[in-house]
């Protein structure tokens, strides 16, 4: 037999204590209730984690009464009275499969389901128990958090981002708050219900409260859940990054960095560059101070002569990777750039263009190569086979990275102009 744990619907209650009486205003039903202190103590103990017997034991201790059976009977009656006034939910901590039953949603207990993972951070934390109310389709709206069950009966607590009520059966699409991709749509009959509250350390927090107060709630919970709140500021390390862009970071935060390792490019601002000298850095390829006016391109950008028609001022550009200027004439290059820094290689199509790049570049770590303006370009790991000879390619091939040659081709034919 399932055990049901009473839970007061404090979500809709305003409470005022006036001497020996407590006034409850039910904002949902627009009704008032008067309670004596004992009834109020029972109501407060109905937190979704205590059984009727637990509450009786608490009252027995508080009021120093030994007849536990009598108190239990009184508590049961009081809770029934609350239930009749619509002030009471009942929670089951049994597995959902054991408790889901047909009938109207209002008669069903709230299902308490444990949460793992962090996709709903900071509303839900790993270890929370969400209280799920069986809900009709009409009761659900975009923005509600629901729990649904996948084909392997694994439960997912995510937020509704779309409702398709026109399909048969109706479909619901959910998403974790910190996830980018929505989940695949699920049929409504796989939805267990809507999350109405969360049990945190045995105490209920209603969704309205959690959603309206994410930051401070997380702060309060952090002090309870994690020891980090009282610890000194944590010191991050950065490893294996292409670009570590610190231009918008404070001096304090830079000084707090524990270490930087295996980073291709670190960018600093004129305001914080002096802090970098205190950062333990290992295998950092390049460090540049770049004001906000600098553009930063990572990868293999190619600038086209058409840019000249639209540019408002010459570029101050930092490139990490390979910069292709093969379509630009030497005079284009002089007009396009005010300053150029390249951590990598520059590709141009003539000796004159190379000279032009040399005249404007502050730094090019990987040199300048001359390749034909029209070419096929393979970057990364590539493989060249005899099929290339029979393809429609007329242009030379520029290969950057590892180029393997098929064993079916003894050597690269001279008919394939190759630039490596």
């Amino acid at each position, binding site marked *: 037999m399932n055990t049901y744990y009473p839970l007061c619907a404090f979500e809709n209650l305003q409470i005022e204590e006036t001497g020996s009486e407590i006034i409850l205003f039910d904002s949902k039903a627009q009704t008032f209730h008067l309670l004596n202190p004992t009834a109020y103590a029972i109501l407060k103990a109905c937190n979704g984690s205590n059984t009727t017997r637990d509450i009786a034991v608490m009252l027995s201790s508080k009021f120093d009464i030994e007849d536990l059976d009598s108190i239990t009977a009184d508590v049961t009656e009081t809770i029934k009275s609350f239930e009749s006034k619509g002030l009471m939910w009942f929670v089951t901590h049994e597995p959902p499969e054991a408790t889901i039953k047909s009938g109207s949603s209002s008669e069903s207990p709230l299902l308490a389901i444990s949460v793992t993972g*962090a*996709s709903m*951070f*900071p509303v839900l*934390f*790993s*270890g929370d128990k969400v209280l799920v109310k069986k809900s009709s389709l009409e009761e659900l709206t975009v923005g509600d958090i629901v729990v649904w069950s996948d084909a392997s009966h694994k439960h997912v607590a995510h937020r509704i981002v779309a409702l398709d009520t026109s399909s048969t059966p109706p479909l619901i699409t959910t998403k974790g708050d*910190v*996830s*980018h991709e929505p989940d695949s749509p699920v049929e409504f009959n796989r939805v267990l219900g809507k999350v109405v509250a969360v049990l945190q350390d045995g105490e209920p927090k209603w969704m309205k409260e959690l959603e309206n107060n*994410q*930051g*401070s709630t*997380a*702060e309060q*919970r*952090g002090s309870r*859940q*994690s020891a*980090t*709140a009282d610890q000194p500021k*944590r*010191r*991050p390390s950065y490893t294996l990054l*292409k670009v570590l862009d610190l231009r*918008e*970071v*404070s001096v304090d935060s830079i000084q*707090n960095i524990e270490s930087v390792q295996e980073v291709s490019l670190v960018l600093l601002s004129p305001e914080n560059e002096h802090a970098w000298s205190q950062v333990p850095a290992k295998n950092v390829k390049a460090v540049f101070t770049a004001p906000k006016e600098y*553009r930063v*391109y*990572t*990868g*293999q*950008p*190619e600038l*086209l002569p*058409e*840019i*000249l*028609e*639209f*540019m408002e001022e010459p570029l101050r550009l930092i490139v990490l990777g390979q910069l292709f200027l093969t379509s630009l004439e030497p005079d284009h290059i002089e007009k396009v750039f005010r300053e150029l820094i390249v951590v990598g290689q520059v590709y141009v199509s003539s000796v004159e263009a190379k000279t032009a790049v040399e005249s404007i570049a502050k730094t090019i770590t990987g040199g300048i190569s001359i390749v034909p303006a029209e070419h*096929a*370009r*393979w*970057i*990364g*790991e*590539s*493989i*060249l*086979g005899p*099929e290339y000879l*029979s*393809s*429609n*390619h007329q*242009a030379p091939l520029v290969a950057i990275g590892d180029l393997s040659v098929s064993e*079916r081709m003894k050597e690269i034919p001279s008919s394939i102009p190759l630039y490596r």
Partner: protein
Amino acid sequence: MGTVIRHIPILDLRSVSAEAILKIDLVENVKTVVLSTENVEAFMEVPRVEVRSHLIIHPDETLFIGQIEFNDSFLSQLPENTKLVILGHVLIDGFTIPLFRERIKTFRVYGQIVYADAKSVGALLARLERLQGQLLRMRPNSVRWIGSTELNAERLATVSGRPVVSIGPVKINPDVTATDITQSINSMVQIGELFGSEEALCALFSVCDRRLGTYCVTEMDKAHSATV
């Protein structure tokens, strides 16, 4: 127990308070973390492993996540002087340049830009402040293969002589021959990993004008080769 966030391609923390971010114990295996100017300092304290990039969105910037056909229809939905940030691929067949200049003040792209119209991309480059990805030319009216692609006879049949733009891994079906590929595709831009037999891979490379990534000769082919 603290909060650990792992194995998410894009972790969007823009709306999360600094206080809440400070309670994260670890972020692991995330491609891009999206932050606001309000919480970036807090995130500086969060331990992280395999976090490839951080993207800070300013209050006056508009972020789009996902693949975008960057055309007049898209531009006309934006207010004037939008500071646009795109996390995803941008595909440009062409747009009306005065409309672009009216709607886009600055532009940041974290993904691939693939374009067919040089004039359009010239206008775009003039306002492109940040690019993390490729800027590649495709031929006009290209077929798009976005995401993981299974290259089989049916898919090849749909090419119908049009150029192909492929972003994402391509697995070449064992039934597809090198000749099938070279006869069906005469021009391709491909970004991503390729899987297939050695001959099929060589054929696919041979039709690529622009190509970025790695390749893998499939085990099936290796096994087949060993028994021949």
